């Protein structure tokens, strides 16, 4: 089986979905109205509410949501074989993520561009809003912890990437000064910046940096995690033009370069898929495909995090309501193509089935390492770039991705603590520095509590992160469903996905609690129980609210 067929299948399904299914949902279900005056116009203030060109908005939305999750999830999920992962990514993007992302933008735009949290309070009720706040806090906690561990693992597995990854930050800061302070020409500065970055990637393998076994009693993994959180804390407090803006810019540039090169390499080299279609021989201790597949791959199939971004900034800049189709559904498609590339890299990038089996010798074994090594091999075969440089390029791409998500997540978490300081009248918590300290502290606690410091069990928390992420998506879908029912529109296309992910999520949580319990991982077990309680409450709320709305609609019908 040639990887080109996987690519063609995935891309075809997703684009057919865009051309037919998204048009159906946009026209018949959400009924996007070109004459509706969006908040970008009615509340225009030149700052947050500014009508923006739909292609620019799509790019912005896509790069905001794209992180390391659509790479890590699929790369882990290939342990069950490439077919289940491929089907879930392709059809999940079309029927779940696209509907959810487009719906989140639409729901927010129809309600003065409020954020999903505020919206759940307005549309559904106070209980939904409280649940939403709890779930979003848990998601942010996990996202930051997991990505800290992910990047630390990347740096340890590929010491040649240490120089380019940290060097990219220096390059970004220099670009920031050049553009904002010295006002140099952007294309020129970009060119120099990209060249310097790729030179660092080229020479990185020749100057590998590996931390010593223990530093002040901490393992190499623990030291990297601490350094990364220290960096993220500083990055979230600096003015955006100094580091975040240029760093996101380079990130975007090399996302397009890296993704483009990877797909070109796949079509040129036509690598053979060595991974099994459905793995007949899963390693001992691997949970069963159902339901864990559906929470291992969240981003790339359905992710609640996108709803936060969609209702946070995207909805405030939507020029016309029909643009939600390109921006929302199209953004989900972008994630899907990233996930597809990860599946191909992790299943076709190895020389033999034996080699693949060795990497996927335990659950969580593949992950980013498989993406980097496998993708590196494909890049080498298709473009001739040496395997070390290819692997370094993909490592830098993944690390920068995860880094961006990490400090966005940290910044959002700081806002939550500051909001709590406001609500509960704790003056000290309202300030940026203590709130940042609390955010970093709680995420570090989770990272170390989940075994990230030992370097071995860090990704145990991944399915838990996927589940919580999808709980949030479930709540968003509830808001959308309620709005549809109130307008007497057929909401089945939203309610069915919502029911599916809630049921799967609860099942997956039950299994994970049992697994953590039997492995005596009390911290994780406790956390999973908290998420389960939240999940049960979310499900009950969804059922109760929908039943009430249906009755109300029938009464006035």
């Amino acid at each position, binding site marked *: 089986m040639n990887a080109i067929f996987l690519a063609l299948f995935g891309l075809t399904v997703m684009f057919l979905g865009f051309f037919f299914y998204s048009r159906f949902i946009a026209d018949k279900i959400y009924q996007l109205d070109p004459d509706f005056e969006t908040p970008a116009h009615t509340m225009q203030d*030149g*700052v*947050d509410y*500014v009508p*923006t*060109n739909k292609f*620019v908005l799509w*790019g*912005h939305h896509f*790069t*905001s949501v794209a992180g390391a999750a659509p790479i890590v999830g699929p790369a882990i999920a290939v342990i069950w074989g490439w077919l289940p992962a491929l089907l879930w990514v392709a059809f999940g993007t079309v029927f779940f993520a696209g509907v959810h992302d487009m719906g989140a933008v639409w729901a927010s735009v129809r309600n003065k561009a409020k954020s999903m949290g505020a919206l759940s309070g307005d549309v559904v009720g106070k209980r939904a809003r409280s649940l939403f706040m709890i779930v979003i806090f848990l998601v942010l906690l996990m996202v930051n912890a997991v990505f800290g561990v992910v990047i630390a693992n990347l740096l340890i597995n590929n010491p040649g990437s240490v120089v380019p990854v940290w060097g990219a930050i220096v390059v970004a800061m220099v670009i920031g000064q050049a*553009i904002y302070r010295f006002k140099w020409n*952007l*294309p020129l500065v*970009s060119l120099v910046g990209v060249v310097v970055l790729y030179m660092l990637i080229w020479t990185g393998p020749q100057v590998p940096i590996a931390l010593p076994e223990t530093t002040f009693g901490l393992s190499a993994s623990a030291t990297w995690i601490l350094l990364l959180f220290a960096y993220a804390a500083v990055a979230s407090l600096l*003015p*955006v*033009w100094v580091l*975040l*803006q*240029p760093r*996101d*810019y380079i990130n*975007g540039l090399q996302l397009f370069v890296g993704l483009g090169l990877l797909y070109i390499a796949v079509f040129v080299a036509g690598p053979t898929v060595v991974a099994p279609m459905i793995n007949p021989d899963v390693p001992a201790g691997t949970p069963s495909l159902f339901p864990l597949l559906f929470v291992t791959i969240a981003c790339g199939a359905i992710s609640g995090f996108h709803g936060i971004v969609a209702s946070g*900034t995207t909805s*405030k*800049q939507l020029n016309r309501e029909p643009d939600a189709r390109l921006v929302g559904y199209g953004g989900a498609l972008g994630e899907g193509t990233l996930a597809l590339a990860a599946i191909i890299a992790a299943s076709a990038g190895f020389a033999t089935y034996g080699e693949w089996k060795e990497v996927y010798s335990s659950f969580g074994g593949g992950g980013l390492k498989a993406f980097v090594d496998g993708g590196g091999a494909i890049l080498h075969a298709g473009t001739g770039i040496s395997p070390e440089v290819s692997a370094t390029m993909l490592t830098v791409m993944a690390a920068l991705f995860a880094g961006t998500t990490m400090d966005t997540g940290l910044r959002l978490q700081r806002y939550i603590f500051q909001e709590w300081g406001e609500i509960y009248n704790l003056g000290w918590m309202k300030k940026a520095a203590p709130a940042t300290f609390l955010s970093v502290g709680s995420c570090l606690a989770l990272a170390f509590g989940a075994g990230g410091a030992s370097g071995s069990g860090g990704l145990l928390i991944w399915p838990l992160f996927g589940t919580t992420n999808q709980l949030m998506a479930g709540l968003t879908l509830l808001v959308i469903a309620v709005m549809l029912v109130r307008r007497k529109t057929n909401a089945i296309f939203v309610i069915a996905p919502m029911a599916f992910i809630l049921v799967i999520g609860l099942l997956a949580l039950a299994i994970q609690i049992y697994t953590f319990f039997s492995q005596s991982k009390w911290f994780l077990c406790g956390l999973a129980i908290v998420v389960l309680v939240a999940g049960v409450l979310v499900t009950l709320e969804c059922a109760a609210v929908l039943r009430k709305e249906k009755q109300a609609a029938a009464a006035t019908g």
Partner: protein
Amino acid sequence: MSKLGNIKDWVLRANTALNTYYNAPYRAAIARARRDEDDLFMLLVFSEMMGIPNPASWYTLELQPLLLERFHDWHVRMGMEKSPFDHISCC
């Protein structure tokens, strides 16, 4: 249009597109920071009315009519329906 003109036109548009791509993600954050600074300046101009002695009040007096609209936007943004000061009747 001449070939050179076409190329120049394309380069100019590419330049604009790249600049948009650089600025778009953080345009709102930077605009917000700028608005906060402008708000601070506006409040300094009206500081005499709030009872805060202003050594430059003679000069800030001149600016008051220019900043009246800004003051109205500010108090609406802060959640106050009417102007909080008696001497400033913007609405």
